[in-house]
């Protein structure tokens, strides 16, 4: 039975084809984005959910239905799971029309009812008039819609999308993003979206799970995961541009501050009590959190801190200027960006000195 509004839970281990230890949770009408680099196990996880592969151990539940439980030796086949699956290249049946593809998901019903339902779903995904076309006669976006209609016509308990937007052009992708967001609200079932595009995850997902080498590194709301990666690996996968080395000097609980040495300067960061003093740490500063000011300006007061830097390179790029700057005593440069007007006003050029200001709260300390 379909279970609209039911949570999906997975906790599995796997030895082949790659070692995996993963946990997922997706709310009843939520979209969970599985994000990670190639080979991190995103697609393998979808196959486990669909029943196309079998975990070594663990449990997979959708609502009140248990699909896999190694303790009880339970493993339901894909046919028994009611899963709507859109593979990366859609997996359309090339010898069938668009209508035939969607009807194929309903083989147990009388032909007339199958056709009625299939046409309804082709209309829902905005494909009226293309029912008699074969997949080779459809564009990438149209093929994706047929695959989506075929997945949904069975009224699945969960929808699995494996990088569904990777093979379509930018304009089609934006349209499909909107349609998926609308569809998600109407369906009321968990949606698992595999993607390596962080912007896509931020745009569409209610939650996101970061995967690397078969392990779930971090789960949470996309903005929270992006802002607060749990460790350096997560930060790198999330594309953190300023991940710089330092030494943790001491914690000051009274001011909720942890002090670090960066090159030859001391820097205040939000308290990170789980890190030990006198150990090497990494500190992260989002480039958009930093502001360049003139070197002679007085150090800012309150919870805004600053560093003196020496400008290394300047590169105009897409309406802003990408800047690298050296912190005294540190080999790794700080990456910054500034509006061209600020760069001109401060007369910034390679070799010039400047001050970088940033809110203390935007610094994040991580274990290396």
């Amino acid at each position, binding site marked *: 039975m379909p279970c609209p509004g039911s949570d999906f839970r997975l906790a599995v281990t796997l030895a082949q084809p790659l070692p995996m230890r993963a946990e997922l949770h997706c709310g009843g009408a939520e979209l969970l984005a599985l994000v990670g680099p190639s080979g991190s196990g995103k697609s393998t996880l979808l*196959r486990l959910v*669909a*029943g*196309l592969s079998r975990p070594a151990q663990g449990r997979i539940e959708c609502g009140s239905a248990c699909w896999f439980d190694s303790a009880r030796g339970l493993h339901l*086949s*894909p*046919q028994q799971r*009611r*899963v*709507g*699956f859109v*593979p*990366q*290249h*859609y*997996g*359309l*049946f*090339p*010898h069938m029309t668009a209508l035939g593809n969607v009807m*194929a*998901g309903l*083989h*147990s019903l009388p032909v007339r009812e199958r056709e009625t339902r299939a046409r309804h779903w082709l209309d829902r995904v905005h494909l009226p008039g293309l029912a008699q076309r*074969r*997949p*080779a006669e*459809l564009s*990438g976006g149209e*093929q994706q819609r047929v*695959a989506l209609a*075929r*997945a949904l016509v*069975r009224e699945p308990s969960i929808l699995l999308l494996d990088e569904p937007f990777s*093979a379509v052009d930018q304009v089609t992708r934006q349209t499909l993003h909107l349609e998926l967001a609308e569809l998600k609200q109407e369906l009321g079932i968990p949606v698992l979206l595999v993607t390596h595009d962080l912007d896509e995850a931020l745009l569409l997902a209610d939650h996101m799970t970061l995967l690397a080498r078969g392990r779930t590194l971090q789960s949470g709301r996309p903005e929270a995961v992006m802002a607060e990666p749990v460790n350096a690996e997560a930060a790198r996968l999330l594309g953190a541009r300023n991940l710089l080395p330092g030494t943790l000097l001491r914690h000051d609980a009274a001011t909720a501050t942890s002090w670090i040495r960066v090159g030859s300067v001391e820097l205040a960061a939000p308290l990170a009590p789980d890190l030990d003093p006198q150990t090497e740490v990494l500190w992260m500063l989002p480039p958009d959190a930093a502001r360049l000011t003139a070197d002679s300006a007085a150090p800012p007061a309150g919870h805004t801190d600053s560093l003196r830097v020496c400008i290394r390179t300047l590169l105009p790029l897409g309406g802003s200027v990408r800047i690298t700057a050296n912190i005294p005593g540190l080999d790794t440069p700080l990456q910054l960006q500034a509006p061209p007007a600020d760069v001109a006003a401060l007369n910034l050029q390679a070799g010039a000195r400047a001050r970088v200001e940033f809110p203390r709260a935007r610094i994040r300390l991580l274990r290396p």
Partner: protein
Amino acid sequence: MSSPGMDFTALRLSLELGVVTVLLLLPLALMTARFLAWRRFPGKSLLEAALAVPLVLPPTVVGYYLLVGMGSGSWLGEWVERMTGQSLVFSFSGLVVASVIVNIPFAVQPMQRAFEAIPGEVRDAAACCGMGFWRTLLTVELPLAWPGVVTAFVLTFAHTLGEFGVVLMVGGSIPGETQTIAIAIYDRVQAFDYAAAGQMSLLLLVFSLLVLALAGGWGRRIGRRDALPRI
């Protein structure tokens, strides 16, 4: 058609052998090809090599082993003789067994290639559409592998009609029992009856050309119709 040189008994025997071989071999070869296309297991290369051996061995070598393997001295030959009272060698039944074995690579390989060409995602999608084994086989896999099945059918049938060495070794040349058209042609040449040999050879040549051309054209048409979508 009045053709005193044409050996219709041999022609009928060859056609019967072709039909029986195809009917027996194709279903078995289809499942073997499907299995080999998608499964990975230890010793797969060895099994594939064993199935392809009739392609590279001289027919006389294959014929020799079949003769020894099916003769009354072998367990198979002894068992068949005990059950049916007939010897497997120098009989039509023996010819069928030999023909099936010799044609394994002609039947398996085109179908294996055809199954291999079906994307894994298509089979995954079929499973997630709730299709079971037989429904997937009949409505998705077979229609997509159809050109390979047709090629396997044509190659097996045509090769059975043209097989000479193995048939001669296992069946001898008993008119009406094991003398196929290919052996009849050889006999006519030995008897300097070139007119009859020529007639029968021409028939085989035209038949082979027609069948191959028809099958090729049909396979291409299906291939174009069911082309995988460009993504």
